[in-house]
């Protein structure tokens, strides 16, 4: 069985809980697959892992789907719980998977302190730019001007650049990709999982149901096309001026 194939990763999933709770067109299923493919391609066993997740759509990626130890905890605190587990059992590969609302908003303090401490955790942030599960409210990663249920006139605030934030706080591996860039994403996840120290991968994930439909990206394809058209690699971003970069999302490895 070739590692990373759909047939191969099926044994890493609790198939009895399928179908997933994700909405049609949600990018989190792509990310779920990408994480498992990365682990499988590395030849690692799910028995070596603890997956910690909080509250929100992103928290559902490992729990209950992964056939591994999972700890499903309170909103925002996954990194703090994971810190405790890692300290007691440093041999364990501890991976935190959460959404932008979970990790960057209510749990933002734990994110920067995990990075500052450079503790050996892998944190994967499924950033769909919205609180999806509660019905589409503004988050700290919602783009300026975007429409949400709580910003019906457009978001007046600026979003976090999570990669810059975590890099500045001291993380030793920092990367950003989208669920459209799935091969680069898998490569990055493999590096993050192998990296000793705090590794952070921000994954832009499509949410046509809660985000897209209020922002002229109603279909799953429209959201993936948005990522294709708006994401620029770091090397190209260096050649662009601020006006050209205004509506672009820079992807790649920021700290390695």
């Amino acid at each position, binding site marked *: 069985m070739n590692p990373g194939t759909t047939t191969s990763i099926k044994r890493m999933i609790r198939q009895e809980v399928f179908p997933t709770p994700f909405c049609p067109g949600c990018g989190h299923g792509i990310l779920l697959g990408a994480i498992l493919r990365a682990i499988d391609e590395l030849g690692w066993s799910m028995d070596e892992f603890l997956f910690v997740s909080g*509250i929100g759509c992103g928290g559902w990626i490992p729990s209950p789907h992964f056939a591994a130890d999972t700890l*499903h*905890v*309170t*909103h*925002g605190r996954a990194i703090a719980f994971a810190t405790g587990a890692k300290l007691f059992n440093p041999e364990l590969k501890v991976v935190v998977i959460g959404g932008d609302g979970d990790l960057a*908003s*209510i749990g*933002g303090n734990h994110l920067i302190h995990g990075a500052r401490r450079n503790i050996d955790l892998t944190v994967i942030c499924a950033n769909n730019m919205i*609180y999806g*599960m*509660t*019905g589409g*409210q*503004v988050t*700290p990663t919602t783009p300026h001007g975007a429409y949400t*249920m*709580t*910003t*019906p*006139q457009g978001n007046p605030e600026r979003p976090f650049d999570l990669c810059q934030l975590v890099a500045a706080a001291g993380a030793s591996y920092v990367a950003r990709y989208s669920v459209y860039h799935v091969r680069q994403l898998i490569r990055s996840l493999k590096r993050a999982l192998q990296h000793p120290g705090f590794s952070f991968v921000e994954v832009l994930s499509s949410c046509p149901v809660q985000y897209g439909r209020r922002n002229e990206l109603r279909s799953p394809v429209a959201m993936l096309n948005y990522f294709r058209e708006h994401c620029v690699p770091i090397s190209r971003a260096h050649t662009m001026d601020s006006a050209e970069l205004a509506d672009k999302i820079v992807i790649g490895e920021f700290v390695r």
Partner: protein
Amino acid sequence: MVESKYMPLDGANAVSQAMRQINPDVVAAYPITPQTAVVQNFSQYVADGLVDTEFVPVESEHAAMSACVGASAAGARVMTATAANGLALMWEMLYIASGMRLPIVLTVVNRALSSPLNIHCDHSDSMGARDSGWLQLYAETGQEAYDNTIKAIRIAEHPDILLPVMSCQDGFITGHGVERVGILPDEAVQEFVGTYHPKYSLLDTDHPVTMGAWDFTDYYFEHKRQQTEAMNNALPIVKQIFREYEELSGRPQSIVDMWGMDDADYAIIVLASTAGTTRTVAREWRARGIKVGVIKPRVYRPFPAQEIIEAIKNCKAVAVLDRAISFGTPLGAGPLFTDITSALYNEGITGLPVVDYIYGLGGRDTVPPMIESVYQDLQEIAATGERGALVRYLGLRE
């Protein structure tokens, strides 16, 4: 009395409508199921310019209540809403709000506390906060949630109370359930709640004050005595405000709702939406000639002991329904039960058999046959004189 306009609203939306009419100065909130709709609808009113409120969607419930405390200390009329773990995350700030005597009004759309993770209704969230110095109101219906929200403003801001108020309703059951809700005219609500004139506020530079400053062995105790005194004396004022609202709305507003209690042999005491199910069963049993009654406290903190004891003292047997466990109490009884039984003892009533039923945890449905089984148990207790198990479970599989 003014005429209400009737609209099909869910309980969350009914509270948003009340908030629109109250037009608070500041709302700071964070989304959590099943509260989200309350603030989400309200944010639409802000965007549409229907209210003058400064609305801020903050980064957590801890931040939400902190911002509310700051705004209230600065002299604003402040409202917010939450549920379950959101309320738990506010815990630290709940005591700051009541200790600073800030009249914040918080809607709680009751939901079970994790772990394990559950989004459905029980009262474990607000019951855990019952000792935090907040007044607590419980609504049976969306209509009551609307009415309580408006009354809560007057209660909190009353100069002899000056304490925050938690206005609770059952998550999903009333929070998401659409019903016919009577909405008062905007101007009637505005007149009823009036304008808030804080006695002390920050940014009043002619009268500088310090709030929350350190207060050790010298005066902390005295300040807590004042706080408990305000709570102890609140009930007559709450009653008066309920009465005024009854005159305005034409809807009965007793602090403890009584059904069939004039001559009841068997009584069930229950908070919030399950009171409706209980009354439905009680009506059928009354039609069969069995003297049953229902007691539904609308106010839980301060606890209306006198009203409840007066109503049940001549019963043959009484059941309390608790939608939360107070872990570690004798046999794991619920908070309502422990309050009622201690009140009975204090009044010197010791012969009345009272049993507790834990029900509906994590949103487990409580259906009429379960209530019938409770009345049957009460009949049996009265007939045999054997109280039996003190704490029982309704609808539990074991």
